[in-house]
């Protein structure tokens, strides 16, 4: 399996950034009308964003659009390296205090400059009482956000944080103008909203005063929702759109073979199994471990993902993570004999019956469940599939109406800390095994987050991998390859690696239509 790491040459914007963006955006030639740069890029989304609110996480499609409209203090370049966005620089005065200098030429879509007061306003919107913001609990470590001067912000933390900058680079942490209203947030992103129709399309057009000179490289982007993946691909093939997300795995070969299409792919999200550990056989970690040994993961990859992915045997440490945590000692393998032995040890030599929850809404969940079901049957666990639609699936998951559940997800940045929402028991959700609570794992996660020394953190996460293997909060199945496919006249777009794949919209700044 060749992994597609994006080969990086410094892009224009990174170069410009290092020079210091001295040129006033106002001075940019408007439009560059003779160029292809005025064309509208047509982007096939996998779903229509249910809402577009700056601080809520309402799915990948919404996040992509949000990154076009609003930017935060930090961001990523196309190779997934942290980059200052609205901030020009960041200076840690001590492990618990960071001072951000704002970019001089950054202006909001209403023409007003981005000031420290706007930063204070935005971060306060996230942490304030009653907020529904995605990062509300993560950013509860902020003890104070102060405007030092018009362009300088000081952020104080209750404890050192290894991931503050990643959190600030999140699509759920944009800086919006303090003049924003609930219905009309004002951002400073590369595009402004041009028009939209619920369920159909969203069109954005270039913000001429964007702080990165020469960007964006297209006149606008029209996001069109194609909920059906086959149709999304058909639309790309037929030339109805220029670029699509979530290229269906079945079509990878077709794109590879095509002269007119290209794709950018990376290992991103991963698939795993969850358990209801409050009752029944799965309350016993041995039974969960048995499941870990029972499944031939390559078959999941082949059947559910058309062979596009890699088996995952241990803690899902994302691609692009600063640490290498691989260790066969704390990883499963496909070993049905061992699985049966573990079952027998747990007191189930003849297996048992149980309910396997997935969803019919997503084919990959359903297909994964089919393969898992077949392999569980081989060690005597007879699972009945329960495939409600997504909405009921979430509720069933949250209320624990299952024995085993299939799920797939991604963290939001390339660090093991990104597994926090999936493993930290302080915030139970349908993404976690029902009733699972481990002080050992919680403690390691807390320690990893508040330790800033990378070597120390590596040791902590190695312990986490061991705890993960022993206590089995999840049984990992495989990494999915996530691909964007585009027509060959689209250049400059990159698929961000690992958990940052969902933030690939940052690369749209550099994307050109030839």
């Amino acid at each position, binding site marked *: 399996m060749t992994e597609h790491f994006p080969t990086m040459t410094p892009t224009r914007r990174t170069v410009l950034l290092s020079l210091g963006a001295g040129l006033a955006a106002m001075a940019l030639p408007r439009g560059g009308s003779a160029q292809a740069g005025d064309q509208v890029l047509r982007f096939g989304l996998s779903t229509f964003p249910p809402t577009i609110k700056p601080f809520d996480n309402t799915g990948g499609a919404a996040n992509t659009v949000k990154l076009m409209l609003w930017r935060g203090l930090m961001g990523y370049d196309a190779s997934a390296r942290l980059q200052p966005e609205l901030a020009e620089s960041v200076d840690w005065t001590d492990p618990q205090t960071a001072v951000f200098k704002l970019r001089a030429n950054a202006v909001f879509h209403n023409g007003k400059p981005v000031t420290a007061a706007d930063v204070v306003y935005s971060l306060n919107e996230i942490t304030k009482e009653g907020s*529904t913001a995605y990062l509300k609990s993560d950013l509860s470590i902020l003890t104070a956000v102060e405007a030092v001067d018009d362009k300088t912000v000081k952020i104080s933390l209750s404890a050192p944080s290894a991931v503050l900058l990643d959190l600030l680079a999140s699509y759920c942490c944009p800086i919006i103008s303090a003049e924003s209203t609930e219905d009309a947030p004002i951002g400073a992103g590369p595009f402004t909203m041009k028009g939209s129709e619920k369920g159909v399309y969203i069109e954005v057009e270039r913000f001429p005063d964007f702080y990165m000179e020469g960007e964006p490289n297209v006149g606008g982007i029209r996001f069109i929702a*194609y909920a059906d993946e086959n149709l999304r691909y058909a*639309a790309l093939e037929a030339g109805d759109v220029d670029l699509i997300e979530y290229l269906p795995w079945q079509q990878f070969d077709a794109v590879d073979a095509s002269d007119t299409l290209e794709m950018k792919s990376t290992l991103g999200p991963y698939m795993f199994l969850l358990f209801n550990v409050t009752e029944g056989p799965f309350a016993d970690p041995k039974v969960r471990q048995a499941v870990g040994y029972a499944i031939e993961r390559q078959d999941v990859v082949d059947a559910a993902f058309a062979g596009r992915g890699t088996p995952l045997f241990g803690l899902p440490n994302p691609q692009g993570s600063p640490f290498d945590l691989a260790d066969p000692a704390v990883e499963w393998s496909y070993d049905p004999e061992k699985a049966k032995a573990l079952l027998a040890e747990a007191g189930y030599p003849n297996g048992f019956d149980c309910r396997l929850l997935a969803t019919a809404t997503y084919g990959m969940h359903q297909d994964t469940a089919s393969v898992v079901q077949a392999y569980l049957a081989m060690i005597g666990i007879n699972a009945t599939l329960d495939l409600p639609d*997504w909405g009921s699936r*979430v*509720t069933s998951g949250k209320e624990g109406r299952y024995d085993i559940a299939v799920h797939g997800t991604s963290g939001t940045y390339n660090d093991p800390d990104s597994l926090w929402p999936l493993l930290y028991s302080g915030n*139970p*959700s349908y993404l976690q095994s029902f009733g699972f609570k481990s002080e050992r794992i919680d403690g390691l996660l807390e320690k990893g987050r508040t330790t800033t020394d990378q070597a120390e953190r590596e040791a902590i996460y190695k312990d986490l991998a061991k705890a993960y293997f022993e206590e089995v909060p999840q049984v990992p199945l495989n990494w999915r390859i996530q691909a964007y496919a585009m027509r060959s006249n689209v250049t400059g777009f990159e698929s961000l690696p690992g958990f940052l794949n969902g933030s690939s919209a940052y690369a749209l700044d550099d994307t050109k239509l030839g």
Partner: protein
Amino acid sequence: MLAFLLRRVATALAMLLVVGTIIFSMLAIVPGDPAELLLSTGGGSASEEAIRNLRLEMGLDRPLLQQYLTFLGDSLRFDFGTSIVDGSSIAEAIALRLPRTLEIIAAGAVLALLLSIPAGTLAGLRAGGRFDGITSGLNALLTSIPGFVLGTLFIYVFAQVLGVLPAGGYVAFAEDPAQHLQMLILPAVTVALHLSTIIFRMTRASVLEMRGHDWVRTATAKGLSRGLVVRRHILRNALGPVITVVGLQLGILLGSTVLVEFVYNWPGLSGLLVTAVEQRDYPTVRAIILTVAAIFIGINLVIDILYSLLDPRIALQ
């Protein structure tokens, strides 16, 4: 006539009340929390606190009975309210989407009528002949191919292999008329083919039945030309049952376009409903169902009136 209309409208309102109540109670017992769903779109995670706050914003914390009474009151005033997901006006969304669904139904119906009334008439007039054999056989085959199979095949052939038509999607007519029509072709043809099989059967059977009536012989005995006999004494009589079937099918189509809209990514009313159901956007689901039911009842009323105009024996009661 006025008394008839008043009575029918009253019955319709009563039925809508029943429909609304059924839908409300159905949605009330269904699993799924719109707040949690919204915040976990695409597999993300949301904190308990955020979900709780959002439920409050959506007004889902109120007692069920209170919600029901508000719903009834608002519906009576034709106020559909706003979506609990994004706060947009439901009436506006329906006003935007409904015409599109009606558009493919109308385009499909026109195509179907143009295709199947002449063919059905001819087949009925020459029942047992070669034309009847071929068209009836073809019709039976087409009837047996479900719409989504046909749609999938069409996209494969016309968009992916031949590349002559777009694979689906929608552009407003005002924005780009040519492209709008191009995108309309496949959905309309798919609807038309399905609809035409039903109209064809009905037309053929109806023509065949009318041909057997004594008045047809009377008309021929009077010395009317063949054309006149067919037009005035067969076709005109055969139209009644055909119109009933067309009307009924149009009502049914309001719902069954869901597969066509899905296959062709045509942003019509059923797509809105499917999304609303997925998101558990209760007010939107209720509003759409009520709208569809109202149209359905309306169509039936129009058919009854049309029928009584076509056949003087039938009095409106």
